[in-house]
């Protein structure tokens, strides 16, 4: 049984279609939800959480009909919003323990789990102080803790590294990765930073203009391309390029690299011999991988056009 399955999910706002017949299946593990601003990621997450009612479509979540069995399914879900959501005049312990009970845990269990969970996210003595004095990093940890305290089966994290400095970002991503890998809790995380997604996610769902663009294991997005990047050092670089062109290869010169289109031909030996003949130093030779950023470039213009058309 898949973790999540949506069928033809559509949300139409008066001025814009946020989700447009969006069908996707998510199996588990750590899934990244990516898309540019306004692509429909937030609407998608909010529908899963019951915060937004879709115009039409079906959602199966953890085996429940999420649109009709909201309270039943939501007790197994943890949610960390992108924005501030903490009442700053109470302590982290007071708030997280309250949230555990709102998730259905008995009072004693809620207290115990609160202490454990706050320790997991790295909050110690300061958890008894009111949250007004917390740093952004500490607040983000409390937000994560309240999403984790009831031991959910799925955690939905909306931009969990928002506002953090590089060190805080690393720690947060590490916590997310550990939650998914070691605690065995499925995670769906939205981010507009592809580098973060690449670091922690196993699966990727790409949304553009309210439609599913692509979904699958992360590896399938970064397949090897048919381009070889070569970096050489020496005086006779120009001759090297000319010799490659002479052999009928497609060659493009980039800043420090020479890019060679390789198709079926495997010109490795030829390149090696050319390097040796011209007395160059070979610094690097590698097959280029497609980067996640490449996914977004070609569609950027249609995205804007679609928005204009919708308005």
């Amino acid at each position, binding site marked *: 049984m898949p973790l999540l399955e949506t069928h033809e999910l559509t949300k139409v706002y008066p001025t814009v279609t946020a989700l447009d017949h969006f069908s996707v299946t998510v199996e588990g593990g750590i899934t990244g939800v990516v898309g540019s601003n306004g692509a429909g990621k937030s609407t998608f997450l909010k529908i899963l*959480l*019951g*915060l937004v009612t879709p115009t039409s479509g079906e959602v199966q979540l953890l085996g429940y009909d999420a649109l009709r069995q*909201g*309270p*039943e399914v*939501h*007790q197994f*879900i943890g*949610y960390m*919003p992108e*924005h*501030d*959501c*903490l*009442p*700053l*005049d*109470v*302590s982290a312990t*007071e708030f997280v323990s*309250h*949230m555990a*009970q*709102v*998730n*259905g*845990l*008995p009072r004693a*269990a809620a207290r115990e*789990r609160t202490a*454990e969970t706050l*320790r*997991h*996210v*790295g909050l110690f003595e300061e958890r008894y102080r*009111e949250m007004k004095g917390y740093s952004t990093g500490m607040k983000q940890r409390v937000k994560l803790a*309240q999403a984790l305290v*009831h*031991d959910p089966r799925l955690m939905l994290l909306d931009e969990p590294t928002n506002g953090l400095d590089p060190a805080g970002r690393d720690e947060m991503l590490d*916590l997310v990765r*550990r939650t998914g890998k*070691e*605690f*065995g809790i499925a995670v769906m995380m939205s981010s507009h930073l592809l580098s973060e997604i690449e670091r922690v996610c196993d699966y990727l769902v790409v949304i553009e203009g309210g439609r599913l663009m692509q979904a699958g294991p992360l590896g399938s997005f970064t397949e090897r391309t048919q381009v070889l990047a070569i970096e050489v050092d020496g005086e006779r670089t120009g001759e090297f390029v000319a010799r490659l062109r002479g052999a009928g290869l497609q060659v493009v010169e980039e800043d420090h690299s020479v890019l060679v289109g390789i198709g079926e031909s495997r010109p490795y030996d030829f390149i090696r011999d050319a390097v040796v003949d011209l007395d160059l130093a070979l610094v690097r030779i590698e097959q280029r991988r497609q980067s996640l950023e490449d996914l977004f470039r070609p569609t950027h213009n249609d995205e804007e056009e679609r928005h204009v058309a919708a308005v």
Partner: protein
Amino acid sequence: MSQRSEPAGNIYDLGYRHYDGVRLGRQQAFFSLYRYSLRGAFGLGRRATSKIIPIGVVLLAAAPTFAQLAIAAISPINATVISPANYFDFVQVTLAIFFAAVAPELFARDQRMRTLPLYFARGLRRNDYTIAKLAALATALMFITLLPQLVLFFGNGLAGSDLAGYAQDHWMELPQVVASGVIVAVFFACISAAIGSQTPRRMYSTVAIIAVLILTSVVAAVIAETVRGLTLKIVVLLVPFEAATGTIRWIFNAGVQSDTNLGKSGLEVWICFPAVVVVSAITGWLTFRRFARVDV
């Protein structure tokens, strides 16, 4: 513990345990929110300064009780200055301060701090949230509308020489005290919730609640000086404090003094009760509608 023996390199690495105990679901969510809100109303679990206003107001509202008990204890004759029937007249302003301080706390805070989506994304429906909050506010108000009068009732009984005799003479007052305390609490809870929930800004709702409760009474007093007849009757019914006073008089079967606004209007006091019910229903509905519609 075996966890201790692990390398101390990663401070978070204390092992994660899954929870396999009971999950009590929606009911637990509801009662937890009720308890948490009630605690919040009195600033419990918060810093000391947030306790000052609510606790101070509760003491202030209990002052007439202590005054009456002191009179009863000292004076040789059985003088009743403050009775359950007119208790409300002494604490109106105190009540208004309490609503203005507490209702925005309960109904605007989650919107201002943006905690609302956390609740609505849990095993709780939006209407459950509203009911829990209204119940918490009404309960908090009963600390003012009901508790001091119960103390007064039993205190009066104990102050006299003959407790059994007092109970025999006054037993009818107990259900009246409870009924009036509960009705007044629910009535003002609905009004101040309807106002307090409309905006996340605490300042606006505090001012609006004061305006609706106190200014309307002032306006009614001015109108009572100039106009009589049907207009004044309608005005009196629409002014929360007047309608509440009328209802209390009706419950205790007590007369209305002719120099009060209520007396000048010549209104039959029982009519105040349906007015209170209707206003509670409308303002309660406004509160539910607000939380059913608010975007999170």
